[in-house]
Structures are given as structure tokens and as C-alpha cells.
């Protein structure tokens, strides 16, 4: 056993570093390092830079324009990005709808959508959850009726991330009301500019506008926008949910956050000594690092299994649970460390009250803490993940 990369992998790592040194824009880097919100334009700018390099399809097969990298290369690539604090890729096109399209879509759909996704010409969002159906996703009610060559959609979706920026949405709709609730669900692609699509912001407790309601009021969508077969949407949805979970752990970002916190603690005083000397604080930081080691290795074990053709299993639930719990513990400690300097608050990330003496990083710690409450809820709550493990792994 060893953790060494091959020569080829090490050369690749250098290539990624080199790319980031040269192409990762300074103005985005600064905003990211400061915890500032990016504008829509900046997010698109970054995606286009990566697209130009040909590295958007890092998890895509070559035949659809992907890099065709093996698990190790993908790991190296994503880790380098994370360690440089690069913005996360908007996953809804790239990692979510794309695999559905190339696996279940028509040739025409593949040809039309996949290149546009790779080039970030379209910003995608996800229409899954509904006000009445959270964890019990299959109980969804948003309805699509076939009328001639079109489907007419009526209903509402909730928790749609960044719908306010999106060009397209993939939606689970109910095309049949009888039988089991999992049946009669259809997977359909909708242009956000279609008349009758309305986005209404949901403001979260961190003051941010990240998620939305999306209402569908007699929205007419060409029948050719259905992916795969009508009524088979649940199959595709499960396929996709699974992809979502496996890319959620985010260990490198956490490592950055822990290191930053430890460093900052050298300058924080609660009592007479710097917080970085406090035994309880040191224990917590140590525990984070140990947990991160275990989390990373669990990811690597998954990659190794994948390389051996075993493919990711329900262990992705395991990564999601531990990863999100750890994210929350880290943001909690950052908030605790900031103490009353975390009080100044003007809303979401963008806000820093320049006039206030409290350091920027302290001022955003509450928003971060509050924002991270969602991570154990979205993508299937951690309780649901435990149900999945109980059933699929432990057989109980």
C-alpha cells in the first residue's frame, strides 16, 4: 500500500497547478479567499475558462467530449481546484442532467445539450422537490399533460438552487396519477424563458438568496424535451440522486477552512492566551484533521473500488453523512472562535461592514454557519441517507 502518485499522475498534477497559476483570474481568487459572493458573470467567466482548457468534462466519458480521466486524475484535478479555493462547478448541468442525457436521452438531445453544457452555454437548475414532497420525493404532484406535441406543466418546485440565474431546468413531472407513486413520473427539460415559468426567491436564514420556488403555470413544453420514456422518470431520478451524493464530501475545502481557522486562532483572544493555545480548541482542530484523513481515505477507497470496476455503491451515503456533519462542525467552531465579533451581520456572504473593527472572516462566520445548516438536509437528508444504508448495506 502506498499513497504515491505515478510519474504520469505527478506530471498531470503539475499541469493542473500550472493552469491554475496562469488562468485562475486574480479578481475571482481574491473574492473567493475573502468569502465574497461572486456575480453571475464571474461564475460564468470561470466556467468558460475551464471549458476553454477542455477540462469541464472531468467526469465525462471521452465520447461525449469529456476528459476520460481515471479516478486518480479526477481526484488530483478536483483537489487542486479546491486547494486553490476555486469556485465549485455548478453541478446541475455538468454532473446531474448530463449523465441522464447521455445515458437515457435521444441522439438529438445528446448532440444538442451536451456540448452546450460542456461549454457552459446554458446554466441548468433542478426541479425535483416540491413544497409537499421533501424526503418522500416520489410523492410529487407537479403535473404534465400531453396535448398534441406538447406537455402542459402545472405545479410548483422548491429549493431550486440559483434558478434566478438559470437558462434551463430539468423537471420531474407526474404524467400519470394511477398505480404506485413511483410510476407515472416523467423527466423533462424546460427552457426557463418559456411563458408561465416563474421564479420566486426563498430567503434562507443566512440572509442569502440561493434557492427558489419555481412555479409552472400552463407551461407548454415540446414533447421532444422528455428524456427517455414517459413514466420512467423515477428510474432516471434515482440514477441522478446517486450521482449527486457522491460528489458532496468536499474534504479539500474543509482542510483549507481548518487550516485557516487554526492560523486565525493565533490572533484570537477569548481569555488571556491565544485561542490556538487552548487545549479544547486544539483538540477540536486535531479531531477535524483526523476526521478529514478518514473522510479522504474513504473517498479514495471508493475511487479504488471504482478503478477495480466495482463502481460506487451506497458508500456515497456514508460520505455524505460524515462529510456534511464535519462541514457543520467546522463552521460551528469558526463561529465560536469569532465570538461576539461574529455579531455584525448585513445578510449573506457579500456583506462585510468595512467600518466595523471585527475582521471580515469573523463577520461572515455566522452567515457561513447558518448557510451550512442546509447541508445535512439537501440532497436527501442525513436521516434518509441512514435509511438507505440500513436497507441497502446492512440489509435491515
Amino acid at each position, binding site marked *: 500500500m502506498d499513497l504515491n502518485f505515478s510519474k504520469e499522475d505527478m506530471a498531470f498534477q503539475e499541469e493542473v497547478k500550472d493552469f491554475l497559476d496562469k488562468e485562475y483570474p486574480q479578481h475571482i481568487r481574491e473574492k473567493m479567499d475573502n468569502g465574497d459572493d461572486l456575480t453571475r458573470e464571474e461564475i460564468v467567466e470561470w466556467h468558460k475558462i475551464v471549458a476553454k482548457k477542455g477540462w469541464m468534462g472531468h467526469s465525462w466519458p471521452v465520447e461525449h467530449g469529456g476528459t476520460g480521466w481515471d479516478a486518480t486524475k479526477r481526484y488530483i484535478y478536483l483537489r487542486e481546484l479546491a486547494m486553490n479555493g476555486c469556485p465549485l462547478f455548478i453541478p446541475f448541468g455538468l454532473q446531474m442532467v448530463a449523465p441522464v442525457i447521455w445515458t437515457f436521452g435521444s441522439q438529438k438531445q445528446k448532440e444538442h445539450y451536451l456540448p452546450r453544457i460542456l461549454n457552459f452555454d446554458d446554466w441548468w437548475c433542478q426541479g425535483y422537490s416540491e413544497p409537499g414532497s421533501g424526503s418522500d420525493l416520489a410523492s410529487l404532484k407537479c403535473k404534465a399533460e400531453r396535448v398534441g406535441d406538447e406537455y402542459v406543466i402545472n405545479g410548483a418546485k422548491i429549493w431550486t438552487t440559483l434558478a434566478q440565474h438559470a437558462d434551463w431546468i430539468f423537471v420531474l413531472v407526474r404524467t400519470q396519477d394511477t398505480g404506485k407513486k413511483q410510476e407515472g413520473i416523467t423527466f423533462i427539460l424546460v427552457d426557463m424563458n418559456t411563458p408561465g415559468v416563474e421564479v420566486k426567491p426563498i430567503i434562507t436564514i443566512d440572509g442569502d438568496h440561493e434557492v427558489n420556488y419555481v412555479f409552472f403555470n400552463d407551461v407548454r413544453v415540446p414533447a421532444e424535451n422528455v428524456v427517455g420514456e414517459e413514466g420512467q422518470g423515477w428510474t432516471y431520478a434515482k440514477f441522478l440522486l446517486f450521482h449527486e451524493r457522491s460528489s458532496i464530501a468536499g474534504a479539500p475545502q474543509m482542510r483549507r477552512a481548518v487550516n485557516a481557522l487554526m492560523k486565525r486562532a493565533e490572533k484570537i*483572544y*477569548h481569555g488571556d492566551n491565544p485561542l490556538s493555545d487552548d487545549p479544547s480548541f486544539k483538540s477540536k482542530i486535531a479531531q477535524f484533521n483526523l476526521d478529514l484523513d478518514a473522510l479522504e481515505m474513504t473517498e479514495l477507497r471508493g475511487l479504488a473500488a471504482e478503478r477495480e470496476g466495482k463502481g460506487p455503491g451506497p458508500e456515497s451515503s456514508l460520505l455524505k453523512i460524515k462529510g456534511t456533519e464535519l462541514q457543520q462542525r467546522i463552521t460551528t467552531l469558526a463561529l*465560536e472562535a469569532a465570538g461576539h465579533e461574529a455579531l*455584525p451581520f448585513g445578510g449573506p456572504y457579500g456583506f462585510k461592514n468595512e467600518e466595523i473593527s471585527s475582521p471580515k472572516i469573523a463577520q461572515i462566520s455566522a452567515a457561513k454557519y447558518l448557510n451550512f445548516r442546509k447541508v445535512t438536509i439537501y440532497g436527501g437528508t442525513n436521516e434518509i441517507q441512514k435509511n438507505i444504508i440500513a436497507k441497502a448495506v446492512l440489509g435491515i
Partner: protein
Amino acid sequence: MNLSFTEEQILLKDSISKFCSTDYDFESRMKSVNSEKGYSPEHWRMFAELGWLAVPFSEEYGGLDGDQVDLSVVFEEFGKSLVVEPYLSNIVLAGGVLRRINWAEKGTFIEDLVSGSKQISLANYEPQKGYNLSNIDTAIDADGNLNGSKSTVLNATNADYFLVFTKNIDSYAFALVPKDAEGIEVKGYKTYDGFVSGELVFKNCKPEALISDENSLEVLENVILDALVCICSEAIGAMEKSYQLTIEYTKQREQFGQSLSKFQALQHRMVDMFMETEYAKSFLIKVLATEDDNEKVKLTYGLKNQISKAGKQVGEEAVQLHGGMGVTEEMSIGHYLKRLMVIANIFGSADYYLSKYIEK
């Protein structure tokens, strides 16, 4: 041994409870939060009329001669409805200093607090200097002028006066500074739980009065101890409401064909929330009922440690069990979490107070 409230305390509790249930629903609370001042002046007038602002002050100044238990009763009820009116800053902190300090002219100021006609904020903490109360740089110079910076001045933007804890030659003192004095700069901000606060900068500022009681530091320490008991009581109110709201929500929310409240894993976690709240209550009663001063100080440190942790746990679980709705601004539960997290970390964290508990 007596662990019960007095009749007066029960009346006080009922009066606040009644007010909150009729005049202080979540919507009107948020209206106050989002208003310019960040609280409702009308409510504040009602608090004065109902005598709540008079609770801890002596009869001499129109007060009710209440004790820590009375304040605790007020705050536990406030916690249930997340009351944002500036009771802590005016009555407990600034008022707490005034009623303890040796100063001939304090009467009118206390009377103004009791009537609600003036607001005063205590300014003692300083930027990046932590929670040890004597750790300050602000000082009175040879000309009697005040220089320095203060942070976490609760309710700063609404204050008419500031009571500024300062070095004075070899000792400590409180400087009384009106909000529009020359040489003072007030930098206000909203806090993440919906309150207002601020920072002050003094540059050669001449105080209206310098209260140089030789026990100033001890007074401040006692005021902060009182404040700890108050916010911990508030947290307990907020915790109680949090688990109740969670029970209500999970009862009505259906998933997989049954109420969320019927899932055993969630039930056990709600039981944990209930238990944490009950044990927190017990610990508060222990503090309130302890008479030995030294022991009470130690236990108050312990209380802050326990409540910080319990409040965090209950608040976070409440949001988690509300699912996606829990993290929306439109539901009240997230606001309980915010207040609980502020209480957990203001005046010093759980770890800070565990250390003090161990050292004491």
C-alpha cells in the same frame, strides 16, 4: 428548600406570557426586527407601563425591588417569543451598573430607564480583546478626556447615553457619555439574530460624568454575571419553544404516508431535545436557588457552559427536523437557532466558561 416562584413572580410570568401571545406573534416580531430601530417603541412603552422595566430597581427610584429570579422569569418568557426589545442592554447591563454603583446622581438615570424615556448602553468590551473584563485599553487622560474603542455595545444605535468602562489613573471607572458628545463615533450594525449593536470610538471625548467608584470592576463583573443568568433563562425559553415547534411541525408534516412525528428515530431525537431543555432548566434553578456568593459565581460559569451547548443542540436539531423549511427566513424556527447561537457565544463561549468554572 423552596424551588417555587412567588405569587408575584407567577403574576409577572403570566403578564409577559399573555402579552407575548397576543401582541408578539412571529410576524409582528419580524416587523420590529426589520424596522429602522430594530425594535418596537410602542412595545417598549408598554413594557414600561406594565412595570417590566422597573423589575430590578429599588423602590427608591420607582423600581420593584426584584431579584435575579424575577429577571430570570422575564427572560424565560422573552425567549419563548424572541423578544427583541432592548431589555438586556438597558435594564440588565446599563441598569445593572447604575443600581450597583456608588454615584449620587444615578437616580434620574434609573428613573429614565424605568419610565423608558431614555436608553443607555453599556460599553465595556473592546475589539479583539476577548472576554476578560479588566482587559481594556480605553482610558481617561490627564485632561479628563476619554480615548479608546469599544465593541459589542448592544443596542448602540438606540442609546441616548453610553456607560463606558474605562481605566482611570490606577483604577477603573465608568464614563457617562451622551450619544452626541464631541469626540464620539457610533458605528451601528445589525446582529445576525436581528438585534442592533455597535462599536464606539472615542477621541478626546469629554464625558458628561465620570463615575469613579473604586469597585467599578467588581460592579461590572456582577452585572455580567446577572446578564449571563438572564440570557441563559432566555435560551431556556427559546429551547422550550423550539422543541414544541418541532413537535407541532413533525406532527403535521407527512412523508411516506405518515406524520414525521411517527418515525422512531426522530421521536428519540425530540425526546433528547426535551431532556436537554429540562436539565438546562434544572441547572438554572440550581443557580437561582444557590445563596453562597462564591458558589453562585462558579455555578453561573457552569450555567453558561451548559446552556451554550444545550441551546446549540436543541436549536440545531429543531432546524434539522424541520427539513428544508427549517432554513428559510419565513419560518420562525431558524430565528430561534440564531438567537440560541448568539447566546451561546456572547460574553464568552462554552469553552471559555468551562475553563472559568474549573479554575474557580
